[in-house]
């Protein structure tokens, strides 16, 4: 049995939005995660981190490349095989908890076990109780539906559900995104303990550095590429604007201001505004126009 939980080989994901319009969300990702590791993938929104997580979680398929989870190449599996695969080997934790609203805490945790077909109703229930106790959910909450629980409780129940079928890996997408700092920290600590003492593999994607830090290995994702060290441009945002860009922007702005004066005159003709307020507003706009014209003359 290999010791590798997740292996991505040159994974490329291209989304076709419309004929001729394509977005390359992942640009050749190579990643290896060993069993029992806790890794984080950090990146801003739109960097491709959720796409990457969905591909690892077999919810989405790569356009090119291979995906090997728990030693099994899942790239060419059918939809039905993937459902079974997810059921038995992958646990999910979402930002918005994604509990089934009509089921109570206990039933939510039982659901993956029932779907797996491995447990009877009674066995699933017994195991669900143990899992809820493990993640620290109080017994009085067992029969509560998600709307009757706090955010922290919901995420704990979701964690118990993720653990239900002893998955090879647990994938977390911004798990603290909907929690306050203290509650988020408690949930993350819980995952850390489960990782250390149960040797459960965790992969967390986040844009929150303090969540990412909990991992024993950090990756950075930016524009569909993955890095082991923080890429420079990830830390600072280039706000300098070149002169040409500025010139074109202000020229457009000048046109808009001149049009505003024209509209103002029209309103005066119609009698919508008084002469005084016309003068007042016109003066303000004229000041802005002067300022822009000075810059534009200088730039020439």
């Amino acid at each position, binding site marked *: 049995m290999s010791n590798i939980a997740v292996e991505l080989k040159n994974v490329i994901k291209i989304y076709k939005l419309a004929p001729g319009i394509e977005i390359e969300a992942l640009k050749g990702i190579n990643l290896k995660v060993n069993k029992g590791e806790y890794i984080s993938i950090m990146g801003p929104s739109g960097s491709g981190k959720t796409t990457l997580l969905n591909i690892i979680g077999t919810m989405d398929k790569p356009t090119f490349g291979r995906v090997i989870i728990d030693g099994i190449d899942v790239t060419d599996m059918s939809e039905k095989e993937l459902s079974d695969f997810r059921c038995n080997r992958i646990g999910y934790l979402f930002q918005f908890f*994604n509990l089934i609203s009509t089921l109570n805490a206990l039933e939510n945790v039982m659901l993956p076990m029932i779907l797996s*077909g*491995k447990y009877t109703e009674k066995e699933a229930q017994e195991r669900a109780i143990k899992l809820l106790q493990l993640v620290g959910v109080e017994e009085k909450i067992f029969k509560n539906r998600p709307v009757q629980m706090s955010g922290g409780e919901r995420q704990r129940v979701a964690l118990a559900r993720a653990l239900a079928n002893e998955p090879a890996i647990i994938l977390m997408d911004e798990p603290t995104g909907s929690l306050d700092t203290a509650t988020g920290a408690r949930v993350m600590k819980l995952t850390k303990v489960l990782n250390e003492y149960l040797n459960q593999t965790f992969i967390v994607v986040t844009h929150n550095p303090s969540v990412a830090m909990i991992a024993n290995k950090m990756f950075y994702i930016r524009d569909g590429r993955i890095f082991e060290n923080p890429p420079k441009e990830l830390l600072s945002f280039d706000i300098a604007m070149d002169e040409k860009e500025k010139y074109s922007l202000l020229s457009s702005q000048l046109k808009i201001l001149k049009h505003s004066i024209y509209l103002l005159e029209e309103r005066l003709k119609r009698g919508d505004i008084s002469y005084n307020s016309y003068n007042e507003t016109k003066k303000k706009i004229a000041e802005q126009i002067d300022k822009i014209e000075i810059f534009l003359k200088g730039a020439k």
Partner: protein
Amino acid sequence: MSLIAQLRIIRHFLKLSERDIVIRKGRAILTILGITIGIATLVSLMSVGLGMRQQVEEQLNELLGAGMMLQGSSTADVPEIILENVKSINYVSDAYPVIIMIGQIKTGACVFLGVPAEQIKNYLTGLQILEGRGFYPEEENVIVIQKMVSERLNLHPGDFMTIDIENVGKRTFKIVGVFDVGTVVVAGQIGIIATNIKTAQKVLGREGYVSSIIVRVSDRSKVDYIEKILKEMFPNARITKQEEILKRINSIMDIINGVLIAIASISLLVAGLSIMNTIMMVVRERTREIGTLRAIGAKRWHVLAIFLSEAGILSLLGGIFGCILGIIGVYFIREFIQQLIRIQLLIVISPTILAYGIIIAITIGLLAGFQPSWKGANIRPIEALRYE
């Protein structure tokens, strides 16, 4: 996966659907109401149709037994004398003459009937004398009138009444009794006025002749044999067997039933649309849950099963309530018809109709729920997860 495991999954899904129905009570009640009304319409109209058919059959049976009617070619051209010949045929239990004429009274058309005094109860099934008496065998120029005629013209025993008889002209008779019948066969809204057969013959100027002879047969299996003998004896006569009349009435009943079912179908269509709409809304509301379910390993058919079970539960409840309301509805329809045209409908609550009601409800529910459920089951999991 074993069958038991699959059943366990379905049971879990039923719980899911059941909760969704309980949580979103208002919407569920409206949807169920839609189906309830549809099924109630179907059940009550089908029951009315069945009741009507049975009632007609029963009355026809009382009238002719397993018998037949022998007629000539015009109003009264069957010689009365053949009656004895007919009676002498084996297996003929009884035979009597009838003359049927159309008359005009102040309120409109009426049936003017000539029948032997001792046979009037056989001919007008369910006859009851309400006022006065019936006419005696040899009594002439006296009539009994139906209750509705008596009420509308305010005529009672002892009064005289003028009838304008077709092809004959105006004649005046003395009323001796008022009766009513529980029948829909002989006359619906036109009233019946009956007199002794002798009077009818004299009015027509056709003494010794009648319009038809009713032949009652004691043994059902000998009907064809008797028909054959009658045909040999009277080659020019028209012979109509009870079963032929029944067949004709049944074909009319089929048309009536068809119309009733068509009416019910419209409400069933509306019921189907209401289920479709509800399931569409449920799928939309729970799109994210579909994504979650797929993420934790649910297959497409699982998702399909969740929504279809919701459609199934809603329509089953609608079907049950519809049957109950339908039964109540039948009594209302009977009351309504009685007020309107003074006919007492027979009510038949058949278990078959109720079973149909529930089966049709579930079928409509599943058919209408299928499209949105299928759509829900086929949303790509990641798109479902992203759905706001």
